[in-house]
């Protein structure tokens, strides 16, 4: 049975060169980067080289990169760190209804600490309204957090515009760029953002390692306290092999960025056209153009996403649908509901996300299997709205 992984938005396999770089670091560079001796200095050197590569990928200075344990941690540091450091200046935070749960729940935690949070609505394609943002901004606003690209439907937000509006009112701008980094060009100077989150496992690097870009002179308090590593913003001995992997992945992403985008877009087009041809009653979720090149989010009438997902899993194909709740069963995505999709459509949604390792044969196999699974499920009329 052919096995096809088409869930790159959830995570990506590590690039072979990343694995090599990490193995070498694990075997050879074990010192604590904070130690003064030669072993420490060697580890420190590996850390700083990786820092430079990550900075280069997003157009930042190396000194502006803080290594964290992933994107969720970076989001928490950005949002809670900025809010708590600036609470004398204001208590209002603006974010969007389609953010990742890390951002939404970090904001939720801050609401319990006395902050007021506005969750901006989005249009039917998942785009944040700049007018709604303008209206929401006030002198009380200290932070705006809007993701660069959405993980469910791939919508790319106009971050530079958002930054301009936020700065006009004296608020910091944080962007969760976890999905965008490595897929589309990201430049913190061009966008003029103050904080940006990224994580290795979305661009062929390791899991459990990420970074927060913190522009110089941004007022931010750490969430994790301790020995003062990472400019005091994230204490704890750094995960040197992980960071080395992150750096390598960043280096490869920068070199291959244009090629990866072209490859993903071409396959996505082939996949979309093929599914449309073979499956009646399918619609695209999100904008046709300003979206991540590898993301295909669609809704299939009369077919529950959960059933389709399991069926495809049984045929060796990995895709995603909705979001898994704590127990592990699927709930319709909050993003699709925020976009105004009716419940039956949201429940019938599937996300396929292509990566550098997918081929035309993969795409053709998936088209076949999706068509056949949909036909079977429709004929059995399983649990779609109304049962």
């Amino acid at each position, binding site marked *: 049975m052919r096995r096809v992984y088409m869930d790159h938005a959830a995570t990506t396999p590590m690039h072979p060169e990343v694995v090599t770089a990490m193995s070498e670091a694990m075997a050879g560079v074990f010192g604590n980067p904070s130690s003064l001796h030669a072993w420490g200095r060697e580890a420190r050197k590996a850390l700083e080289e990786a820092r430079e590569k990550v900075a280069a990928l997003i157009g930042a200075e190396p000194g502006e990169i803080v290594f964290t344990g992933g994107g969720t941690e970076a989001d928490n540091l950005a949002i809670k760190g900025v809010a708590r450091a600036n609470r004398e200046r204001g208590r209002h935070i603006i974010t969007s209804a389609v953010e990742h749960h890390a951002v939404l729940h970090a904001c939720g935690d801050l609401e319990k600490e006395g902050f007021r949070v506005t969750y901006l609505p989005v249009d039917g394609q998942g785009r944040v309204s700049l007018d709604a943002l303008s209206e929401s901004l006030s002198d009380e606003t200290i932070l705006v957090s809007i993701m660069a690209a959405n993980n469910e439907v791939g919508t790319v937000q106009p971050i530079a515009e958002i930054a301009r509006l936020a700065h006009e009112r004296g608020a910091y701008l944080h962007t969760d760029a976890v999905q965008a980094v490595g897929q589309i060009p990201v430049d913190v100077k061009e966008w003029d953002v103050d904080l940006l989150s990224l994580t290795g496992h979305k661009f062929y690097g390791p899991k459990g390692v990420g970074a927060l870009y913190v522009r110089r002179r941004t007022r931010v308090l750490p969430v994790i306290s301790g020995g003062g590593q990472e400019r005091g913003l994230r204490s704890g001995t750094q995960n040197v092999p992980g960071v080395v992997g992150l750096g390598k992945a960043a280096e490869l992403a920068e070199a291959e960025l244009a090629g990866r985008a072209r490859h993903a877009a071409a396959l996505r087009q082939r996949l979309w056209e093929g599914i449309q041809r073979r499956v009646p009653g399918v619609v695209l979720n999100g904008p046709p153009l300003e979206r991540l090149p590898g993301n295909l989010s669609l809704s299939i009438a009369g077919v529950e996403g*959960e*059933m389709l997902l*399991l*069926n495809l*899993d*049984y045929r060796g194909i990995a895709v995603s649908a909705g979001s898994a*709740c*704590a*127990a*592990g*069963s*699927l*709930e319709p995505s909050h993003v699709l509901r925020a976009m105004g999709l009716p419940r039956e459509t949201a429940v019938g949604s599937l996300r396929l996300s292509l990566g550098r390792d997918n081929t035309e044969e993969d795409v053709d196999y998936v088209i076949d299997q999706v068509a056949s699974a949909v036909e*079977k*499920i429709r004929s*059995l*009329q*399983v*649990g779609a709205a109304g*049962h």
Partner: protein
Amino acid sequence: MSGGVDSSVTAALLVQEGYDVIGATMQTWPDLGDEVEEVRQGGCCSISAVDDARRVADKLGIPYYVLNFKENFQERVIDYFLREYTQGRTPNPCIACNRYVKFDELLRRARALDADYVATGHYAKVERDEALGRFVLRKSVDRGKDQTYALYNLTQSQLAHTLMPLGYYEKTVTRRIARELGLATANKPDSQEICFVLDNDYKRFVAEKAPEAVRPGPIMDTRGHVLGTHTGLPNYTVGQRRGLGLAAEKPLYVVDLLPEQNALVVGSGDEVLSDRLEADDLNWIAFEQPDGPFAAEAKIRYGATPVPCLVTPRSDGSVHVDFSRPLRAITPGQAVVFYQGDLVVGGGTIQRGR
């Protein structure tokens, strides 16, 4: 797979027999968000149960999914449960779950995954009886654990796609198999509660979810004299003696619940006995339809001993049942299930207990 020893061993036995097995847990409980983790630990149907089931599936090398059954279960089981109490009846949610969820919606989803059967850890035998030309349900080998009372609603097409291997095993043997296979759940205690009322306080549950059903009202004797006040009909069940709050020379028992008047009727020990009942919403397994009165043994509740009776079908599909001796507390809303030896003939819902 509930995370318990029965469904774990069922999966293991089927894998050993060469079936292509997929493990699944139906998530029937709501997501809790901020609630403290302790509340959900232990017992059937919780995140820790999912963890247990997943570990067993991993050990057996089978795929494992948690399926979203929240809406389906709410509608078909929980709402039914609350509705019955509101109508002065005592519900049996496991029967509703088997009928509408486990062997209906779950079976549909299983077929969509190309599965031929849904298998469960029920203590019951599902067999093809060539003499009758039908699929039949029989009591399990372990008579103490027999669960056929809750399974009488299964239709031929459902039975054709059901496997219940534990019908052939004593529970002690099931546990031994679990230990031999090194399953983590071997020593897990059996869960006894209603799966969606974790603390088993169903009165609290009904009061919270259907407060309009729990209103104080009059307690009357069988001649209509008011003797006192009850705290809400769902807090009582036919045959109940304790908790009435009445002083009387002779013991008083709940005889009837009258939801239209919100009244509780109590009577003497004799008045709670009856040797007949009416039932409807019948499902027949041993035959297509009864072609006349027949003799059987009937259970009027899960834990009852089967009692010989005569079942007389009516033209509207309901049945009248006469028992060989008076029974205590025949309760509307409960099921009456008819047996001939270990064969389940069929069953229905008790409408009147006299």
